[in-house]
């Protein structure tokens, strides 16, 4: 067995739930999260980035989850859509929207999840990275390969849309803890 596949085994055994949880917050459903995690794993290990130890592999997979998630939206938008697709998704729902699975999380969390799913992928990724991961705008921009101004706009639009839905959620800006030296990769 080659080194990368050993790393892959360990990674999934030890960090599988954590990575899956992150993909789940982004996609809002178990099957989609599973697909996303698979894609991210393939991307990471195919490029040889998964071979530098478990922590580095973890960071790469996490980043790959985010970028694969954004790409999936881009791809879905680029793919020719059939009439039945549009009907299935409902005329107004954004292409990424999925019905959330019924979950044992609190009602507010479920509401937030439903609200998140109405956001287009990039806005959603920005919001999740900002609130869940407590990343400052500059780090989000770095993570997504976007300009800082673009991230600010996505964040503002995304948070604006969430606010419109009158959730019982505190969306005040997160207290940004200064990130210490060294990028978490």
């Amino acid at each position, binding site marked *: 067995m080659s080194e990368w*596949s050993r790393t*892959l085994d360990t990674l999934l055994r030890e960090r*599988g*739930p954590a990575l899956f949880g992150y993909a789940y917050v982004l996609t809002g459903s*178990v099957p989609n999260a599973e697909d996303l995690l698979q894609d991210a794993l393939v991307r990471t290990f195919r490029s*040889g980035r998964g071979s530098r130890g478990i922590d580095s592999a973890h960071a790469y997979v996490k980043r790959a989850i985010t970028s694969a998630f954004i790409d999936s939206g881009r791809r879905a938008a680029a793919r020719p859509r059939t009439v039945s697709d549009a009907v299935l998704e409902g005329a107004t729902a954004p292409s990424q929207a999925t019905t959330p699975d019924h*979950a044992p*999380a609190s009602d507010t969390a479920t509401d937030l999840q439903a609200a998140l799913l109405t956001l287009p992928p990039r806005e959603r990724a920005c919001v999740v990275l900002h*609130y869940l991961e407590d990343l400052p705008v500059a780090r989000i921009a770095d993570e997504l390969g976007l300009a800082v101004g673009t991230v600010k706009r996505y964040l503002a639009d995304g948070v604006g849309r969430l606010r419109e839905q009158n959730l019982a*959620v505190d969306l005040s800006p997160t207290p940004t803890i200064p990130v210490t030296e060294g990028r978490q990769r």
Partner: protein
Amino acid sequence: MNSAHDLMEQLRVEGASRYAGTALAADHSGVTRRVRRGRAVRTSALSVAGVVAAGAAVFGASQILGSVAEPIATPTAPSGPTSAPSVSDSPVEIATISVHKQERIEDIATDLAATFGGTQQEALDAITQSLPEEAKGNPEGWVAVGDYSLDATSTLREGAVQLVAPVLKALEAAGVPREKWNDTVILASIVQQEAPAGHSQQSAVARVLLNRLDAEMPLQLESPLAYFLRADERVISDDGWAVDTPYNTYMYNGLPPSAIGAPTQEALEAAADPADGDWMFFLRKKDGNVLFFTNYEEFAVAVDEEFPGTGASE
């Protein structure tokens, strides 16, 4: 009111708790297969034909044996544009590593690491360990230009051994004494850069360099310095060229301490078996031709003709 962070954290925990129930948690062989296939496909971008041929052969064999290929799709494997463009679902994996002219050993090591797993440093170490002691622990130049078709299931070390084999073979075939192996590799890599085309030119340039070394004249070449400064990747100011390094052959006599990139087989042959001649100078013209001179005056005149205004200097 709950903070967005706490709520999302709840969602994450909930998601994490459902991981155990997924097909992926039970079996990730689908991922492993896609990675393997992707590695083989990606590294052989320059020789797709070879992979197709191998795939076809194996397909034929499996037809004859009447065996059924293992189904690739797991219940959760996403299909469609996310999967790698596989040319064959067969288990045969051929990884091709293409080494370009003058490619640096680190870049070759990166390719090797991407093919067999491991870090670039590990790949570099594997190449170094595969070398004879004559290489003095520096692998630069010991992997010749070419396309290497390797069995993708072999180890990093086995891959490294295959990469250095052609250079060792060329040195042995040319009858180069072992104590001259390192110098020959270094010379070949310089010849490769100074005279990119044609055996006759390359063997004559090798002769000029050897004549200068014998006469204890500095080589006065730009290519080793360009290699050291990475001038192919960034712009070096005029001052930037004046550095005190053993790669500065205007400053120091003798060969630079290592090769300066991957040589071709042709260049290795030229360095192992240089032409006969008493030239001490060569001039590479703008059209790619190379002129050879035995005395400085003729050389200086030719330089002035070819590059007016530079003054008759080397």
